């Protein structure tokens, strides 16, 4: 009896939906934490250098909003860990300590760094020196950023599993190189892209709220000073997002070509592949440039990946059917190893060698048809456009805001103020869409090439998962409403910070 024959198919979809709901909810708070930490750190640094109490008050206002966001968001990530053990138990065991080590480091770093320095940041204004307080503010942000690093290392490993070896005795992957896991190109790019996206979110939040102040003709000095810092931070961070996004594209083209093909809706690839802006509107050769940094670079399409192809450099890429055959050989060798390991060491050794030979195709053996390798193309395609379009809109608006403010025209241009406010939802939509591209685009894999979601999932009933899904949706909605209400109240009650005459 194996998991595929007895699993309730609804469990997979509901478990995925539940994980997506939790991750999307968690991601509402993380980017604002990362971004506000940077912006308020810069503001407090200005206070430290200029010794102007005005900047202290400005920093303290944004620190208050940071605190609200942090308080509501804290521990929401824990639910994801609950779900690993309950809904994804096969996966949790199979990944072994590779996933556990980064998460444990994240827990320790988050607890000690953030809990220590966040207290100094909020309680220490009149109790510690200005320098110590400033260091605590930056260390709070650094703690949050380091937490993100370890979480993203774990996520990147699922997209590009490296630095491990599968042990059929324990049925776990064992880490053979911590450096390979922690510093894989996928992990580094994912970290830089995600964290810089957080910086943009924090910056546009500050710009958006400040634009609202200016539209209401209140807190003018606070708003102008905040925009002066945040708009520049947002512009620079947007450039980092674009640069790291470009590098991520190259990385995905190498490691997850099906995700790239789905994001482009590209059925037949080739050299000089076009980039689709929207269906029917294309830029010739642009996809090749983005994916390979070569105008004639070869980009495989969905059909090429399913049927197999030979790259221009002569490398033969197997068809999905061939990979599935090899995957079945690996699973068969795994079964024979488990069966004979205690009684027939010779047979077991032979089976283990066969498993090692075909291990890179292990997960393909669980697929029933090649089409299962294709993710939801419309969802990935449009999410990609939302991500890129949202990012482009934000950069344009921030550049306009900087330009108008420098010429003293910002307050008299309501369109710019409204556009500035709209950057806030745009940032959230773009970053959530980015995660949809990353996670839906890698389906059917829980771990790329090794474990599809239908094997990673636990044997639960659909009713159990639907119950917890609904419970989560209810709790998360209540918490979100509470946060938005508290945040809006704090913004409405913003102190009228003014420079001393």
């Amino acid at each position, binding site marked *: 009896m194996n998991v595929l024959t007895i699993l309730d198919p609804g469990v997979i979809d509901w478990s995925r939906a539940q994980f997506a709901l939790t991750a999307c909810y968690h991601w509402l708070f993380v980017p604002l934490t990362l971004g506000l930490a940077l912006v308020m750190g810069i503001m407090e640094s200005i206070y430290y250098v200029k010794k102007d109490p005005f900047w202290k008050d400005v920093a303290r206002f944004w620190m208050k909003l940071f605190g609200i966001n942090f308080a509501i968001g804290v521990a929401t990530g824990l639910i994801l860990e609950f779900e690993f053990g309950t809904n994804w138990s096969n996966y949790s065991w199979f990944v072994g300590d590779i996933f556990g080590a980064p998460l444990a480091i994240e827990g320790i770093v988050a607890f000690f760094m953030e809990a220590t320095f966040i207290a100094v940041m909020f309680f220490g204004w009149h109790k510690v020196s200005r320098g110590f307080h400033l260091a605590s503010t930056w260390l709070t942000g650094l703690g949050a950023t380091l937490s993100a690093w370890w979480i993203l290392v774990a996520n990147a490993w699922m997209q590009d599993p490296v630095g491990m070896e599968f042990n059929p005795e324990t049925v776990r992957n064992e880490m053979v190189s911590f450096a390979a896991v922690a510093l894989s190109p996928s992990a580094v790019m994912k970290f830089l892209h995600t964290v810089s996206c957080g910086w943009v979110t924090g910056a546009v939040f500050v710009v958006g709220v400040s634009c609202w102040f200016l539209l209401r003709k209140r807190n003018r000095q606070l708003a102008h000073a905040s925009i002066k810092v945040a708009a520049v931070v947002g512009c620079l961070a947007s450039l980092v997002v674009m640069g790291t996004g470009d590098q991520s594209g190259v990385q995905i083209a190498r490691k997850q070509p099906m995700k790239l093909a789905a994001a482009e809706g590209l059925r037949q690839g080739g050299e000089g592949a076009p980039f689709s802006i929207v269906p029917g509107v294309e830029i010739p050769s642009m996809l090749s440039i983005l994916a390979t940094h070569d105008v004639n670079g070869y980009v495989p399409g969905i059909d090429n990946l399913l049927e197999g192809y030979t790259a221009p450099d002569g490398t033969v890429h197997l068809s999905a059917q061939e990979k599935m055959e090899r995957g079945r050989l690996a*699973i068969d060798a795994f079964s024979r190893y488990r069966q004979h390991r205690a009684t027939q060491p010779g047979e077991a050794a032979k089976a283990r060698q066969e498993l090692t030979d075909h291990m890179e195709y292990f997960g393909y053996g669980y697929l029933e048809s090649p089409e299962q390798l294709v993710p939801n193309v419309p969802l990935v395609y449009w999410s990609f456009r939302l991500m890129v379009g949202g990012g482009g809109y934000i950069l344009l608006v921030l550049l306009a805001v900087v330009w108008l403010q420098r010429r003293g025209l910002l307050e008299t241009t309501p369109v710019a103020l409204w556009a500035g406010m709209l950057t806030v939802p745009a940032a959230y939509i773009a970053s959530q869409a980015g995660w949809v591209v990353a996670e839906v685009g890698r389906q059917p894999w829980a771990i790329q090439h090794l474990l599809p979601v239908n094997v990673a999932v636990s044997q639960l009933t659909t009713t159990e998962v639907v119950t917890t899904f609904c419970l989560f949706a209810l709790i998360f909605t209540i918490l979100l409403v509470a946060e938005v209400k508290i945040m809006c109240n704090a913004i409405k009650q913003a102190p009228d910070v003014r420079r001393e005459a």
Partner: protein
Amino acid sequence: MESYIFVPMRQLWHPFKAVWSFYATGFREMTWGRTLWLLIIVKLLIFFGVLRLFFFRPTLSGLDAEQKSERVGQELRR
């Protein structure tokens, strides 16, 4: 005699007292932070007291490492 034992102890105790006082004063003087702490406590109670306890029991809990390998190994075999 006393100075050899008790004065260093007092000095040793001082940083802990200072940290305790720092946190105690901070919490006592909180204004809007009280609502947030209340929210955090309610949230943690729901997460750990309800969700973790009644809805999220790890599927492999109660098994030792050997049994977990056996269980997952069985599920991965075709």
